[in-house]
């Protein structure tokens, strides 16, 4: 996220050095008054934000050190909820699934997006807007609907199985989302489907701002399309890749809707994710402290990833 870079310039003396002292005092007191006014404008948003985001964040940290069933009095747990993760097979599975999802939600869409951007971006494509509209479409659909769509696609009588039958592969047909080993990759592919458009659109926009002289120079040096991709396109897209890595990895870490609405983490725990565990611990059979601890870890991991990616993408500039 490039936003962190734009820290505001210090609002201080903008008066020219030669001005009369009295005037400077007046101007700076004016600016000070204006900044109090600014605080007043900010106040409503800040109040709501403090109530809905900041306070619960702090409470979450506090709760994560408690044993609490949501009703009776809480007891101090120390780091118990955190250390509890290590011996918890469900949690371990959830983390493994997250890593698996990162491949499908992040790596795969980025690779596909880069390849298709490299292949198409620098040529004039007529009706580019139509293609872009279609490819980005999954991003604006509500997860509730995406879940209905993919449940149907993977259903025993759905198109995937019909296609297999058409090729005489009846033995391979199954209810994909109800299958212990196939439900996870099936959901993963749905994630790839959803994230691919975001990657491609951002990369295509990025390649358009790479100066064409760089490509000409590469051609003159006798670079083939592959060399050209690694020498010119990929370095030129560094910023876009950073944004997409952050967005999609965070998406994989916190995935909930599509999993909950299709498999509820099942069959068994074969598609369980940290947020599903969080939801179950918080509401199904309340162990609120453990749920809060998952939330804290999620937040910390998200912050670290965002900061690391920003740092990496800025380093070699």
């Amino acid at each position, binding site marked *: *996220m490039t*936003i962190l870079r734009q*820290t*505001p310039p210090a609002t201080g003396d903008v008066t020219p050095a030669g001005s009369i002292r009295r005037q400077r005092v007046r101007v700076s007191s004016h*600016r000070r008054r204006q*900044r*109090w*006014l*600014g605080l*007043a*404008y*900010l106040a409503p*948003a*800040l109040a*709501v934000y403090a109530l*809905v*985001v*900041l*306070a*619960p964040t702090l*409470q*979450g940290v506090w709760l994560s050190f408690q044993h609490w069933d949501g009703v009776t009095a809480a007891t101090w747990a120390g780091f118990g909820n955190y250390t509890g993760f290590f011996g918890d097979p469900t949690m371990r599975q959830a983390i493994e699934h997250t890593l698996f999802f990162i491949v499908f939600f992040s790596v795969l869409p980025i690779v596909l997006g880069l390849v298709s951007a490299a*292949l*198409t971006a620098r*040529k004039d494509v007529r009706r580019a807007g139509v*293609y*872009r*509209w*279609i490819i*980005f*479409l999954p991003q*604006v*659909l*509500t997860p*509730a*609907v995406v879940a*209905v*769509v993919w449940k*149907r696609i993977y259903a025993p009588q759905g*198109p995937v199985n019909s296609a297999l039958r058409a090729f005489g592969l009846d033995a391979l047909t199954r209810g994909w989302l109800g299958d212990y080993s196939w439900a996870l990759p099936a959901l993963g592919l749905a994630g790839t489907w959803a994230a*691919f458009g*975001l990657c*491609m*659109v951002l990369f295509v926009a990025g390649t358009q701002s790479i100066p064409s002289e760089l490509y*000409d120079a590469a051609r003159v040096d006798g670079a083939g399309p592959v060399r050209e991709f690694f020498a010119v396109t990929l370095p030129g897209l560094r910023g876009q890749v950073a*944004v997409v890595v952050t967005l999609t990895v965070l998406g994989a*870490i*916190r995935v*909930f809707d599509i999993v909950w*609405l299709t498999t509820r983490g099942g069959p068994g725990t074969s598609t369980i994710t940290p*947020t599903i565990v*969080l*939801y179950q611990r*918080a*509401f199904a059979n309340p162990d609120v402290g453990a749920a809060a601890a998952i*939330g804290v870890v*999620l*937040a910390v991991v998200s*912050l670290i990833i*965002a900061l690391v990616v920003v740092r990496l993408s800025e380093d070699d500039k």
Partner: protein
Amino acid sequence: MTITKREKIFNYTLLTLLAVSVLFPIVWILGVAVSPSTTGTLDLGHPQWSNFVTAWTQAGFTHFLKSSMIITGSVVVLSTVLAVMSGYAFGVLGVVGEKALFPLILLGIMIPMESIVVPLYYDFLSFHLTDTYQGIILAHVGMSVSFGTFWMRAAFRTVPAGIGESAEMDGANSWTRLWRIYLPISRPAITTLVLLSFMWTWNDYFLSLILVSDPAHQPLTLGLGAFSGRYLVKINLLAAAALLISVPVVGLYLFFQRQFIRGMLSGAVKG
């Protein structure tokens, strides 16, 4: 750069292939939605468009639509107003303590909603805000502050400072300057913000799932979940209902493609 004919054909083939693979699942659902079969088999020979009407009534969507409209409408208005004011504060006026306050607000872009929802739920429970419109609206608005502030601050900062200053010389106070100068210039950015806010609220499932368990106040996305969870669900009707929910956002996306894409790519780690 010369492009050979073969290259061109290859490009279009690739793009078409990608577009088809993105569209295929959606088009399939459209087919299922108009098929008469309730088990989800495709039967395009006898399209039954009345499925959409039947689905609407059977799922009780009129009621859920009301909730969705109340929630989304209020959230869009409130969050836009707050974003404009806080963006104006950070982008134009300056804020006391902004070196600490601005990063604090940006933090909200990176904290996943899932992390804070558990304590939020118990807070709302003790303030009797669960299962109310006020509660879910407040939650959405609060979570929109980070992105809204970031977005409007960036928009207002592109306005040349001289314009505001000269208006100030003419005696325009901060409110007048915001209203007469900054808002009209920033209309495109505000349009994008409104669209995104509409989409995020309308499409939300998670926050409503947790904060609104009373069907009387649930939005359409949860209504769809209830519909699909029912015993002996008719799959063609479920598909039809799902498509109906998507119509408003997809419709807006049809007209405002550029704004949607630009807004969503601007580094919004938001959900």
